[in-house]
């Protein structure tokens, strides 16, 4: 049931969970700012080749081994896009970040079983590439 007390408790819980990730987000924004100011755009052009399949694989690999709150991946993805990285690579990066958990794999294996954890993560990695390509195609059709 909706009450003022429950709303206050919920707001306090949200404040606690956001405050836990605040140093990470601040650090990430500081790092993005430093990279944006010091690395020329030509670097991204060298890593990403404007090949939808290859770019989405590279994006998925980077996203899979990265970890942190999803908001960080959206900020990073948005800045990558501004730096000239293709939308398909950025989408694969963000989708893999939130669906593939290489860092969380030991915890997932303990709680849900190693076969389940490996199958889920491998299929999520493959799907992140397909999701990126289909999303960008749909985006251009809409």
């Amino acid at each position, binding site marked *: 049931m*909706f009450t003022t007390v429950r709303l206050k408790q919920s707001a306090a819980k949200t404040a606690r969970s*956001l405050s836990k990730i605040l140093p990470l987000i601040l650090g990430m924004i*500081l790092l*993005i*700012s430093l990279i944006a100011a010091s690395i020329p755009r030509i670097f991204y052009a060298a890593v990403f080749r404007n090949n939808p399949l290859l770019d989405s694989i590279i994006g998925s690999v980077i996203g899979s081994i990265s970890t942190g709150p*999803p908001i960080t991946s959206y900020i990073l993805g948005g800045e990558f896009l501004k730096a000239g990285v293709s939308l398909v690579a950025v989408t694969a990066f963000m989708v893999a970040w939130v*669906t593939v958990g290489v860092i969380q794999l030991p915890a997932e294996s303990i709680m849900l079983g190693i076969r389940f954890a490996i199958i889920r993560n491998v*299929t999520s990695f493959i*799907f992140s590439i397909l999701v990126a390509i289909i*999303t960008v195609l749909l985006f251009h059709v809409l």
Partner: protein
Amino acid sequence: MQLRNELSQVRTSWYFLIAVIIIYVIVAWVNFTIFSSSLIFFYRLIVKIVPIFVLIFILMTFTNLFITPHFITRHFKEPGIKKWIFVIIGGILSTGPIYMWYPLLADLREKGVDNGFIAAFLYSRAIKIPLLPVIIFYFSLKYIIALTVVMIGFSVIQGITVNKILPPKH
């Protein structure tokens, strides 16, 4: 395990911020131009992001208020297609770190919920409604509609695929 994970996450967050500040100090000493342009970039980004954070706080508060583990457990028992719909909506609306949900999902599987539904729930968690303002800010509404539709479709595909590879025992 949950408390240990949370403490470790908080510590890692602070270590990361301190490490980045140390990098900034070194950069300021080596190349002051890059240091100052980085700070200007940081300031502009923060000014843009703060209002979005306020919106995220409000959306997360309401999600925390209504979507509880008890609510999720109750609806995982829905029959047929309703179960798929609920699993995906439940995944989209669920909040908090992923490891927080592992004990509940392990318990649900013990109670007979298929691996596919667990996988679909975890996959659909990738769609974060409270974070939509950030995605719209960086991308566009059209993009988030396309991504959400494709992600929902792939949540079901993920569930079916996992069920094919790891069929239910019951």
